[in-house]
């Protein structure tokens, strides 16, 4: 993985010491809250519902085990002993004191980490495929370009005050595991006709109040021109983005207001005038960064490990973990392991300091010292020898992290919601827990199969509800927490936005409603190989809606003013 050089070190250290001085001046009153607020936000420090919240960047979701230990130390020393991994592959600490923040930033800097640009109207942490570098279906390692983009976008003077926040995702594999099409810019590494690699560039995706799937801006961009081309995109957006209206300020609104063809025309015009050699990455610099991600040579390990086969035959829970939480690795003899932070009764994405230490230790001993955070709020051990799987699994059982439900119904994405978030309408976490409790039997969850269920506590959609096969959105109905259900969203290659199924439900009715939807699917599917999403696409909304509202008085008109009406996107 990438290691800071002296320039990176000097940069994060100087930012941390600047912030120390800014905090000092705030506490003595030299800076007013108004003056201080943008400074603290530029360093990832929010004032949330209960306290200050610090959002720490995990560049493209990649962490070393020692960095995870640093996060554990911060959780223990400065927070309440846990942290929360987010759908942006970042971590948030919920109970931070302003007076401690400078010490925390110093601790992060010492571990090659920071909280710069995790907030504010700038280019945020670039997200990527969590299987990057090890996936069996990978064309090229996207981390190299993710790191290039991290360096390019960090305090880029032209793009620090954009009309609104800006999110870039990148994948180098055949399967999209990074929800690329739900980002302001979504990059897929592709091979050109001559065998050289480049990017399919998508633009204008996003969730929130006005969800859009990104559209293709360029089918093939030679990779050496990535930076100049992105500069052109950013300039067009920076110039025309709606700074006058926060609800219309994202690039998705601009793209859809003028149309993708006109947007493309403007980008191409801008790009043709750019001094490309001045901006594009020199080949030598590419090589320097790529060297950090040079494919590792893994020791030869047995492909068919007898001990693992025996354990699978005798231990149903381990066998289930193997089936659901491990994936093909590009090197024979290895698997990629997903640790689902979705133990029944716990908070999706939360991890205690002790669990962080335990996982850091497993990563050090069994996964090349490295881990990944996924946007589904899980952790990935990228490279585990099949021979070591039982040991790793036992370690996870001991740490309370062995739920074998990755990619299944109970692998729920849930934003912090009203339990932590200042902007929330309703709680997300207790609802996720209630649904998980309703579907506690692992055999049943596995029989239901692949199903993405996502919960957001408000229309900002941090919980990706629009992209859930089943999405749940918290709404405020006359001062009470209600939940609106959407169906048919998908985060993958077949990206789609869920459709609202009907009037909202009070919290206590939601687990039953999910049960009804699942039972309807099970009754109508053509077989276990037809996923929930596939069945929904074949059948449409009608049978689900009929089942959901049968025999209830809840058949009135859709009554949430906040509901995203896709046809009236408000551009």
């Amino acid at each position, binding site marked *: 993985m990438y290691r800071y050089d002296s320039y990176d070190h000097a940069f994060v250290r100087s930012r941390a010491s600047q912030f120390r001085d800014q905090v000092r001046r*705030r*506490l*003595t*009153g030299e800076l007013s*809250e108004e003056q201080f607020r943008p400074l603290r936000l530029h360093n990832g420090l929010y*004032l949330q*519902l*209960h*306290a*200050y919240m610090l959002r720490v960047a995990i560049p493209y979701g990649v962490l070393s085990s020692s960095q995870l230990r640093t996060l554990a130390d911060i959780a223990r020393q400065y927070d309440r002993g846990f942290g929360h991994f987010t759908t942006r592959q970042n971590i948030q600490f919920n*109970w*931070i*004191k*302003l*007076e401690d923040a400078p010490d925390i930033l110093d601790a992060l800097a010492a571990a090659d980490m920071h909280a710069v640009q995790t907030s504010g109207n700038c280019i945020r942490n670039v997200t990527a495929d969590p299987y990057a570098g090890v996936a069996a279906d990978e064309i090229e390692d996207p981390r190299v370009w993710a790191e290039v983009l991290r360096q390019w976008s960090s305090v880029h003077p032209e793009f620090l005050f954009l009309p609104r926040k800006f999110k870039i995702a990148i994948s180098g594999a055949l399967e999209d595991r990074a929800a690329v099409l739900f980002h302001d810019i979504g990059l897929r590494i592709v091979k050109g006709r001559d065998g050289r690699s480049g990017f399919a560039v998508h633009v204008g995706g996003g969730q929130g109040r006005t969800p859009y799937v990104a559209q293709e801006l360029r089918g093939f961009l030679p990779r050496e021109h990535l930076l100049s081309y992105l500069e052109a995109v950013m300039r067009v957006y920076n110039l025309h983005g709606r700074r006058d209206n926060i609800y219309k300020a994202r690039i998705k609104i601009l793209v859809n207001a003028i149309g993708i063809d006109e947007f493309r025309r403007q980008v191409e015009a801008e790009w043709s005038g750019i001094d490309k050699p001045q901006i594009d990455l020199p080949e030598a610099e590419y090589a320097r960064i790529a060297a950090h991600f040079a494919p590792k040579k893994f020791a030869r390990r047995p492909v068919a490990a007898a001990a693992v086969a025996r354990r699978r035959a005798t231990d149903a829970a381990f066998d289930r973990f193997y089936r659901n939480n491990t994936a093909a690795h590009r090197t024979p003899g290895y698997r990629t392991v997903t640790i689902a932070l979705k133990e029944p009764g716990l*908070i999706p994405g939360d991890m205690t300091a002790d669990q962080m230490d335990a996982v850091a230790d497993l990563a050090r001993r069994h996964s090349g010292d490295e881990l990944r955070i996924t946007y589904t709020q899980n952790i990935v051990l990228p490279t585990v020898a099949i021979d070591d799987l039982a040991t790793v699994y036992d370690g996870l059982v001991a740490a309370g992290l062995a739920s074998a439900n990755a990619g299944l119904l109970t692998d729920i994405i849930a934003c912090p919601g*009203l*339990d*932590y978030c200042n902007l*929330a309408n*309703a*709680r997300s*976490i*207790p609802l996720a*827990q209630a649904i998980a409790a309703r579907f506690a039997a692992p055999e049943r969850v596995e029989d239901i199969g692949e199903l993405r269920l996502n919960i957001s506590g408000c229309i900002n959609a941090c919980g990706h509800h629009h992209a859930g096969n089943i999405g749940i959105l918290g709404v405020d109905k006359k*001062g*009470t*927490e209600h939940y609106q259900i959407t169906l048919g969203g998908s985060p993958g290659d077949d990206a789609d936005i869920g459709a609202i199924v009907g009037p909202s439900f009070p919290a206590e009715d939601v687990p039953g409603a999910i049960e009804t939807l699942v039972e309807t699917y099970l009754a109508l599917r053509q077989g276990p190989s037809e996923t929930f999403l596939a069945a929904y696409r074949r059948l449409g909304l009608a049978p689900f809606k009929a089942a959901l509202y049968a025999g209830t008085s809840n058949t009135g008109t859709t009554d949430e003013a906040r509901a995203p009406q896709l046809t009236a996107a408000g551009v």
Partner: protein
Amino acid sequence: MTHPSIITANLLRSGEVVYLGNDGRWTTELSDARIADTPAARSEIEAVAAEAAAANEIVSAYLMDVRIEAGTPAPASMRETIRAQHRPTV
């Protein structure tokens, strides 16, 4: 119409949720908050909060409605119930 209100804020240093108390100090206990139920009383507690903000003691102060239970203020919304507990509901 008068409805009972109190002032809430966060302490600048720690971020803790606090309420302007009966004794004029900032307290973490909502039940100890000073109730204002006339426009004049509300202006008065708002002025105290503005002073505390100017003195860099608190940030993000706002007036919030409360219910009165046995003479004691209680939160009137789920959001304020959660804030007053100083922890999530789970």
